[in-house]
């Protein structure tokens, strides 16, 4: 430290006015009880959020009537109904769809992450940006776009038959392969984002050692890189599987017309179309939640075991593997992905939103603004937009504050019962959105709380479903924060709550912002948890889009989708501009 050599001798002359020392401050922050009250409050809120829908589902699965109907009685027939051929068929389809989706998404997502971060690929920044954008592309909007493209009367078939005269070949998106195709497109960015960290955090010396031992790049990939990533791969695959199992938007839009039913859509069908069977839906929901919960539990185990294995935190510079002759095939593949996952769907929706009647040939089309002007005249749509902004903007704030509070208790203070709190926060993460919605439907039909038909219920559903997003981002920061930073505040005279307020909060602001951003985006595009609990007064934009599409109003659905995406991009830019901390994601 050359800077402080030769500093003048310390002056120990006391100032004339020696500062007095008042007694430790009291008041709202000064006494010790605030945190304790806060803990009890947070514990109670999370317990209610997590346990009410689950308990209601369990109860509901033993009822033979719709939620809130007085004439019901107790029954086991719903659980017996699980053994019916219909449910077993659905379960098989669900597992096939989810399994195939996971397999393909893992292969492509991991390959993309390896190419972007391990080779001399020319446009890593651009590709990362594109993948992040398509991560936020709502699944049901992607499904809509691909229905326009790939349905029997859609773009591709029109092209094949009318323009090229090919009769012997046609595509049908309304099929298992169609669902898998769109789901893979949707899941690839998730796999990329989860694999990117482990790949970038890998200690390069292992790979360098294998190269210097004479391994070719491919041999190194096979024998060193992938085995070292095995924990991360397994963990990513399990999360991907959970998302595929609970995916609702894609199978409901593509699968229902094609008579391909998965568990998530079956729950919806059982509740919406007569003869309704809410009890059976609850039993199916619990089965689905059991599958996803099992996968989540496995993933948590793996993540704990693998943490010490892969990352040393010493991300060094690594010699990129030359792509050589593979450069152009790889470039083409990336370009192709960007087109089918992002560019083409957006353009198709824009096109569909601007024409009066659907035609594949833009030169035949009658262009119109009516789908956009409709938004100005439709009070329902405007209400949906306002609702969406309230639910996303306000709900995300509630979510991030609750999540940060939970993490502070479970990661730092660890008071009695913190493990239970941790478990309850994670519990809804294993519960698919549609199942959570069903649970809330059962719960608030019985509970004497005036929540049904309010935006509060929607916010409750979203916060419950996505609370782990907030606890994980805040928790990761709290773990990093050196304990002594907070202890220094205590020994300097700050009570624990004062330490939180003046030291922990400001130092965690970036990750709180990042958590808010994640929650906002998740709330904005959520549909599966909403679809069973919305009412006319509490409809949100995602539901409006979906219901216009269901009513075969492709034009309006597309216009609303374009509007939603413009809003998302605008809000995204606004948030990133206002909250620099959110940029880390």
């Amino acid at each position, binding site marked *: 430290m050359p800077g402080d050599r030769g500093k003048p001798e*310390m002056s120990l002359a006391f100032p004339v006015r020696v*500062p007095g020392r008042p007694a430790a401050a009291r008041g709202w922050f000064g006494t010790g009880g605030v945190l304790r009250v806060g803990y009890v409050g947070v514990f109670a809120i999370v317990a209610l959020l997590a346990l009410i829908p689950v308990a209601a589902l369990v109860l509901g699965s033993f009822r033979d009537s719709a939620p809130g109907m007085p004439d019901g009685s107790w029954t086991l027939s719903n659980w017996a109904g699980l053994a019916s051929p219909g449910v077993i068929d659905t379960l098989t389809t669900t597992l096939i769809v989810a399994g195939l989706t996971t397999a393909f998404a893992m292969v492509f997502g991991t390959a993309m992450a390896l190419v972007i971060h391990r080779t001399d690929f020319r446009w890593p920044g651009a590709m990362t940006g594109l993948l992040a954008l398509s991560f936020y592309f709502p699944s049901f909007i992607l499904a809509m776009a691909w229905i326009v493209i790939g349905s029997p009367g859609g773009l591709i078939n029109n092209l094949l038959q009318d323009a090229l005269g090919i009769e012997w070949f046609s595509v049908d998106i309304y099929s298992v392969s169609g669902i898998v195709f769109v789901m893979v497109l949707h899941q690839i960015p998730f796999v990329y984002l989860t694999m990117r960290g482990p790949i970038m955090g890998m200690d390069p010396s292992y790979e360098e050692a294998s190269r210097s031992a004479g391994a070719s790049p491919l041999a190194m990939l096979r024998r060193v890189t992938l085995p070292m990533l095995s924990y991360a791969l397994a963990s990513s695959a399990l999360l991907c599987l959970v998302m595929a199992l609970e995916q609702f938007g894609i199978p409901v839009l593509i699968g229902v017309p094609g008579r391909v039913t998965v568990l998530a859509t079956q729950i919806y069908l059982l509740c919406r179309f007569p003869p309704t069977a809410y009890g059976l839906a609850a039993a199916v929901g619990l089965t689905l939640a059991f599958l996803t919960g099992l996968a989540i539990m496995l993933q948590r185990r793996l993540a704990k075991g693998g943490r010490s294995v892969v990352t040393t935190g010493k991300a060094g510079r690594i010699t990129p593997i030359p792509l050589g002759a593979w450069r152009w095939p790889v470039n083409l593949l990336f370009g192709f992905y960007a087109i089918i996952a992002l560019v083409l769907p957006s353009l198709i929706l824009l096109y569909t939103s601007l024409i009066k009647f659907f035609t594949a040939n833009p030169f035949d089309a009658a262009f119109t603004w009516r789908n956009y002007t409709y938004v100005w005249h439709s009070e329902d749509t405007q209400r949906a937009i306002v609702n969406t902004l309230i639910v996303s903007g306000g709900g995300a704030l509630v979510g991030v504050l609750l999540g940060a509070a939970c993490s502070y208790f479970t990661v730092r203070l660890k008071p009695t019962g913190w493990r239970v709190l941790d478990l309850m926060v994670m519990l809804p993460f294993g519960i698919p959105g549609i199942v959570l919605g069903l649970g809330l439907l059962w719960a608030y039909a019985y509970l004497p709380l005036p929540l049904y038909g309010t935006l509060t219920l929607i916010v409750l559903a979203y916060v419950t479903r996505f609370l782990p997003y907030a606890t994980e981002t805040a928790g990761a920061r709290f773990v990093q924060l050196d304990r*002594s930073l907070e*202890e220094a505040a205590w020994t*300097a005279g700050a009570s624990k709550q004062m330490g939180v307020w003046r030291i922990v909060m400001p130092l965690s602001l970036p990750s709180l912002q990042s958590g808010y951003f994640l929650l906002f985006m998740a709330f904005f595009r959520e549909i599966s948890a909403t679809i069973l609990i919305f009412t006319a007064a509490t409809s949100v934009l995602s539901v409006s889009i979906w219901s216009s599409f269901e009513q075969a109003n492709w034009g309006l659905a597309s216009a609303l989708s374009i509007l939603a995406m413009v809003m998302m991009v605008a809000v995204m830019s606004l948030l990133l501009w206002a909250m620099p901390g959110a940029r880390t994601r």
Partner: protein
Amino acid sequence: MGISVRGLVKSYSAVNVIHSISFDVADGEFVTLLGPSGCGKTTTLRCIAGLDTPNAGTIAINGRVVSDPARKLFVAPHERDLGMVFQSYAIWPHLTVAQNVAFPLTVRGERDTRDAVAWALDVVGLTKLSDRRPSELSGGQQQRVALARAIAARPQLLLFDEPLSNLDARLRDRTRLEISRIQKELKVPALYVTHDQTEALSMSDRVIVMEAGHVVQEGTPEDLYHRPVNRFVADFIGSANFLDVRRGPSGWQLPDGTPILVDPASDTGDDSGSVALLRPEAIRLEPGVHGDLTAAGFNRLTGRVVGSMYLGPHAEYIVEVGGLQLRAFSRAALPRGSHATLVFTALDCRLVASGTPHSRSLAHAG
């Protein structure tokens, strides 16, 4: 006044890390807890700060009991009125230097902090850097910000948790002096935790040596160095030769029978497992052979140089004598294999107990 610790016990789950220790720090006294890692010294300090909760025993600061589990009494750290310097400095990166130093004052509701901050920064010589961010400071400067913050509110007690271990050697020497001068000026009791014997010896009025959760010895630095109670303390503080000696027909002798005079005051009459402590610097090492002699409180032995290490001011030699290998210093150049004469007084050669019931970890203590 000062600190008074009585029967302090701390255990994590079922493992005791502190086994009922007691000690005092008088008003204005600088006391160091010294010991190898894992001996419980930092835990003791954290119990006094209120960052850890003891399982038993009482802690009083300036006459006020701040911790007594038997009476379910525990005063939170922020109400103990202390200043603490952490090993990691724990300077808050989102605040400027001045804001860091002002924190103990603003947190107590004081509005005008300017004079106190100026004074504290002046004491550590950082006045010019008051508007800097911690990330712009060097390690030594951050350490001094931590010091200024600890004294800014004029606490009645200063605690130091290995504050110098992250500094380089040269800076460590200077900061050592600064810390003891500041403490002397403030006239508050200070408790300092370190595993570095140089820090302990050079700064403290009194040193408490800990091992495996027990206090092994407490005393002035001179006491500990010259009159260690056992081999562990002798080995941990300073460098030491341990001579395996046994009582012969006409007095003490080395393994090969060479007679040797030891400090009679240290001879307790207990012959089991005796070792004699002989500091390397107490040995005068001269070239040539002058014949063995033990008389008039002096030992003169002949040995053979088997190893040497040049250190600058002098060389350190390994000398084989009487079936033992001893370390000794000399400014003379002694070729390996040559004979040399070792001279030391009987008073410098003290019998020490070779162990205590709880000295399990001698191997890493040196």
